[in-house]
């Protein structure tokens, strides 16, 4: 049903199926509980839903996974936003004494939006993307990922393709969740290469020597630049793209001074990184039509935004007749406990769809955080054992 890929009229039919059989609730719950280390962490988390006809509801909160499931299956939201962890249950915020209901913790989230690059893209504009302008995103992702890990020491980064034209990075480390507003804006400013707002781009202030962050970012840009230019992005002017690219290549071979190299290309692909950061408030994690999926950074260069499954696709896949093997397993399960069977069925269900590899990625991410928490507990108890 390719028509369904482009309009939302079939969503009312597909969403119930999606939420009943495919949405990875247990992974969600596992993620947002963060190992249950902090009491009520999940219970005090705000969710917001965008329903049919653009109805927006805030301050949703849930006691456990089951409540979350039931509510989402009832409401069938087109979009889910994950908010902050508050001091009290968001669903009860009206009963709390005024002034005491406060946001306490929130992941640090970065949003890289293709539309920020409109002044430089010549192939597409607004919500459209193509494989050549996608390279700009790749560059931004690489720069950000390196800086967050190496400079700031963050380890648990969940990169998500938000389904259309943007990529989000959710930094889930404890230090990030506890970061103050001042801290968040300081991190954002550190990472900003372009100062200046909606009007013309302003050049980066470059000093000699270059700060290591800029030097590293420059290395990333150079690596992708030729590829990007070669893919036909007409950034060098109307004509003679190929010639100019060759000139550039030879320029890079001869000129080693990083400042001079940077200056050469800075006018051309300057808005490489213009991050918008959601400091408070909420950020979507599921988009309609195309589903938000985690991105594997190791495969980043091969990532194809057009190959991300749409909701109609995976529903289709679900409806496909099962193979013989699968039929046997289903028969076995009928004899087991009903709840366990339901869980197992669900797992089998999404594994039959294109969602499988993405859920696997998400699981890997969650496993990493669990390992880190375990390591932390061991470390702390070791220290205590010293006495």
């Amino acid at each position: 049903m390719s028509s369904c890929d482009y309009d939302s009229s079939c969503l009312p039919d597909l969403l119930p199926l999606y939420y009943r059989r495919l949405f990875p609730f247990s992974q969600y719950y596992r993620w947002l509980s963060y190992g249950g280390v902090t009491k009520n962490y999940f219970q005090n988390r705000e969710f917001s839903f965008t329903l049919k006809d653009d109805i927006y509801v805030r301050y949703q909160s849930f006691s456990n996974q089951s409540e979350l499931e039931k509510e989402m299956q009832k409401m069938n939201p087109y979009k889910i936003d994950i908010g902050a962890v508050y001091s009290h249950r968001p669903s009860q915020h009206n009963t709390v004494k005024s002034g005491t209901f406060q946001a306490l913790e929130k992941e640090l989230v970065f949003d890289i939006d293709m539309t920020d690059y409109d002044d430089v893209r010549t192939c597409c504009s607004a919500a459209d993307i193509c494989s050549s302008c996608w390279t700009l995103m790749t560059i931004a992702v690489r720069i950000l990922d390196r800086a967050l890990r190496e400079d700031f020491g963050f380890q648990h980064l969940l990169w998500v393709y938000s389904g259309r034209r943007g990529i989000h990075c959710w930094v889930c480390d404890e230090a990030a969740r506890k970061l103050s507003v001042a801290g968040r804006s300081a991190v954002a400013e550190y990472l900003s290469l372009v100062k200046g707002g909606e009007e013309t781009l302003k050049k980066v202030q470059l000093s000699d020597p270059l700060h290591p962050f800029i030097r590293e970012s420059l290395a990333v840009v150079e690596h992708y630049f030729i590829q990007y230019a070669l893919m036909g992005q007409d950034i060098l002017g109307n004509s003679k793209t190929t010639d100019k690219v060759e000139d550039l290549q030879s320029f890079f071979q001869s000129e080693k001074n990083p400042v001079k190299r940077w200056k050469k290309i800075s006018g051309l692909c300057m808005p490489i990184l213009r991050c918008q950061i959601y400091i408070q408030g909420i950020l979507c994690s599921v988009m309609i039509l195309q589903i938000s999926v985690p991105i594997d950074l190791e495969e980043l260069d091969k990532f194809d935004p057009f190959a991300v499954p749409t909701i109609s696709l995976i529903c289709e896949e679900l409806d496909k007749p099962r193979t013989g093997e699968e039929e046997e397993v289903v028969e076995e399960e009928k004899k087991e406990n009903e709840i366990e069977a339901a869980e197992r069925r669900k797992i089998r269900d999404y594994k039959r769809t294109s969602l499988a590899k993405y859920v696997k990625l998400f699981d890997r991410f969650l496993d990493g955080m669990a390992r880190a928490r375990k390591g932390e507990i061991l470390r702390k108890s070791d220290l205590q054992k010293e006495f």
Partner: protein
Amino acid sequence: MQFSRRRRLVSQPQDGLYGHCLQFYGRPPAENISLAEFETFAFERLKLLKTVENLGVSYVKTSDQYTKKLYSEFSNLNFPHKAEADDKKEQTEYEKRRKDHISHFILRLAYCQTEDLRRWFIQQEMDLFRFRFSGLTSKSKTEFLHQNNLQYDTVSMEQKKALVDKLVSSSYAVSGATVMEQDFYKVPFQDALDLVRTRKVFLKGGYAYIPHQDIIAIVLNDFRTRLSKALALTARSLPAVQSDERLQPLLSHLSHAYVGQDYSIQKNVGKISLEQIDPLSTKSFPLCMRQLHKSLRENHHLRHGGRMQYGLFLKGIGLSLEQALQFWRSEFIKGKVDADKFDKAYAYSVRHMFGKEGKRTDYTPYSCMKVILSNPPSQGDYHGCPFRHSDPELLKQKLQSYKLSPSAINQILELVKGMHYQLACQKYFELTHNIEDSGFSLNHPNQYFMESQKVLGDGKDVKREPETPHREAAASKGLGASRQNAEEMEDLDALFQDD
């Protein structure tokens, strides 16, 4: 086999409590002290902080003069400064650190009450802290950081070698040599946000690599945050403290405290004639008294607040009771008050000022602190401190009318903007007397008068008392007198509401 790691801690006061000459004042003192010590400690720290303020405005904070003068004040007042590891002096060093600790906490009680007081206190304590921290040895600095849970470790030599290029290119004014010779500290990036924000520091694995010279900014920031929070907390528990009868008068006057001569003993009675007052008002009166005198002459009247401030000042410069009565009477009669009314209503208050009525206490002339902080003037009043209470535009006009040069006026206005009212007045003194350095620290209008007379050559009659030997006595006397003063003043005020 289990080995017990516990050692019995032999607690000597010297070991545990004041392990470093510098501290963050995290824990309040937990001992008993006498009221006398309470008072003395508080006053001496106050003097130290005032010196910090004065020197800070007069000299560049890193200059030799600043350093020398401030250290000598440390010595005079017996406060700890260098990390002296002199065994012979161990006991005295301990005493100094104890005094530092206790006096800080006492002043917190006095200075937590209003926004202005808090700001002043935090500013001086920060300057004091910065001065003392900068004077520590490198080893001592690291010790201090560790003792105060600022787990800022220094970067090892090997690490520095590996990172030297990156460190040089990220930090301001750092060369390869600097990296190898100086200490670099690893600070969690959350504690160095200003440097992170402007990308003026090297970041690795969540740590900012801070050169030695920048660590003080970070530590100071931490100090200011802690002190600010602590003062807010202190303010909340203040009512409980103030309900203690022994402390209440002490604390409520500490923030208004004047720590010098109180000019209550008249040494120069009768040396001034009434005819001299007019010329003296333009030559030797501070601006506040000049203003009061002028408006008295113009309006033939002054309201209560003005009469008190000016009347006591005149007493302090040497007017006798008889002279004072004559002075006020002759002026008021020119206005709406007839002789009878004056005798009935106003003469009493003049005699009161001289201690000849009511409780028969000899009132002391107001210090600058009292003028600046108490009883702000309202419409129709001429008392107060012009540098504090006048509109800057009007002040500017007034100074222009006194023929001060524009640059001079600007200097004064800058000091006013920085809320250094007494220093502004001192600058006014220097400009009107044509001298570079007044040579004194202005605290009292009568002091202004005496110093002025000295400069203008009438030093024979008006002697300046040496401050040092009287300091202890004057301090407690000042407190005692001002405490009494305030109590009595309230009586007087109650009797004479305006006009």
